[in-house]
């Protein structure tokens, strides 16, 4: 019983294949188009992606430390996204500190600029600047299907600044100079 069913099935399949092979007056093919899900991102800088925020000594006795030079805007956020309407209507990019800590008495803010560059699609919207800590803070939101273009000048410029923490000037310590690693993640369901 089992064998005979297999035989019948095989015969049927062979017949179909044979029939198609013979039919060469009209060509009939199917094209299968597969679109991959894409969620990749990168940070680009003019050279290395390491930046320095250098706090300057005051110029006169009685003045506070000068934070105006402790800023950097050399890095750019690049990304490519192809979203699935069903799985993830839009994506976000988050940033957090994964190692090191910002020196006592100070805090570090990162602000993404509006998208600019040679890309196409529905780019993300930069959020207001965020103070970075060990938890994910959203830097760019509402990324749909798009690409930013590659390298400096494409995507969102990242502006890093240092700020004073309220009433913690006494905790500032030059032995506390430190290196901090910041991790960016584009969400991907």
């Amino acid at each position: 019983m089992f064998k005979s069913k297999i035989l019948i099935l095989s015969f049927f399949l062979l017949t179909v294949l044979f029939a198609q092979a013979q039919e060469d007056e009209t060509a009939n093919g199917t094209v299968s188009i597969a679109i991959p899900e894409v969620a990749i991102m990168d940070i680009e800088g003019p050279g290395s992606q390491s930046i320095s925020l250098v706090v300057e000594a005051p110029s006169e006795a009685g003045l506070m430390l000068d934070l105006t030079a402790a800023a950097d805007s050399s890095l750019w956020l690049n990304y490519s996204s192809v979203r699935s309407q069903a799985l993830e209507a839009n994506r976000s990019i988050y940033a957090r500190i994964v190692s090191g800590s910002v020196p006592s008495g100070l805090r570090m803010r990162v602000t993404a600029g509006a998208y600019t560059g040679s890309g196409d699609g529905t780019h993300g919207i930069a959020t207001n600047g965020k103070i970075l800590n060990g938890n994910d803070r959203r830097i760019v939101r509402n990324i749909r299907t798009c690409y930013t273009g590659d390298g400096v000048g494409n995507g969102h410029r990242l502006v890093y600044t240092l700020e004073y923490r309220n009433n913690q000037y006494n905790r500032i310590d030059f032995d506390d100079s430190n290196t901090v690693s910041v991790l960016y993640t584009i969400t991907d369901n």
Partner: protein
Amino acid sequence: MIRIVSLVILFFLSTFIKVSAQSVSPENNTADHTVAIQIPEVSLVNVTGNSVLQLSLVGPVEAGRPILNQVSDSSFWLNYSFIKGSSSRPSTNIYVRIADGSVPPGTLLSVSAKPYAGNGNGSLGIPSGNVTLTNIEQKLVQDIESSYTGVGVGNGHQMVYSLKVNQSQYQQLDFQSSQQVRLVYTISD
């Protein structure tokens, strides 16, 4: 038979899903970089006020009386900026000494700092008390941690200078021994 067929179909489906899941697995949907934060060593001190301070002992108004015992001035302010290094110099002090000249015989010149006032911030210093000036450094303000006083008159520690007659040396007073004295303030741990 139906079971076998459905099992085969399930197997095919699961393989297909596996393959497609692998093909979209994002390889770099994160990126990280480092931020070096540098804080400078700072220790600055300044005295602000009206250029030269003149202290004049006043003669008696009536024969038989001594010259006025004491004259004071409180027009000068001590401004400073300091950033500590917790392991190398956790706090600092301000010292004062006579660098040039000497106090006229029969008189004593002293200075004291008032408690901090102004628009600075941080862990400001504590007055060390009244100091009779000599050419040896003496502590005027102590236990300064990371702080700044603000700049100019009205910010920092108001200083009170006093010139008085040393009663035990009244006989040494000599109107031709009027002197100019140069004081040096040093911020040092």
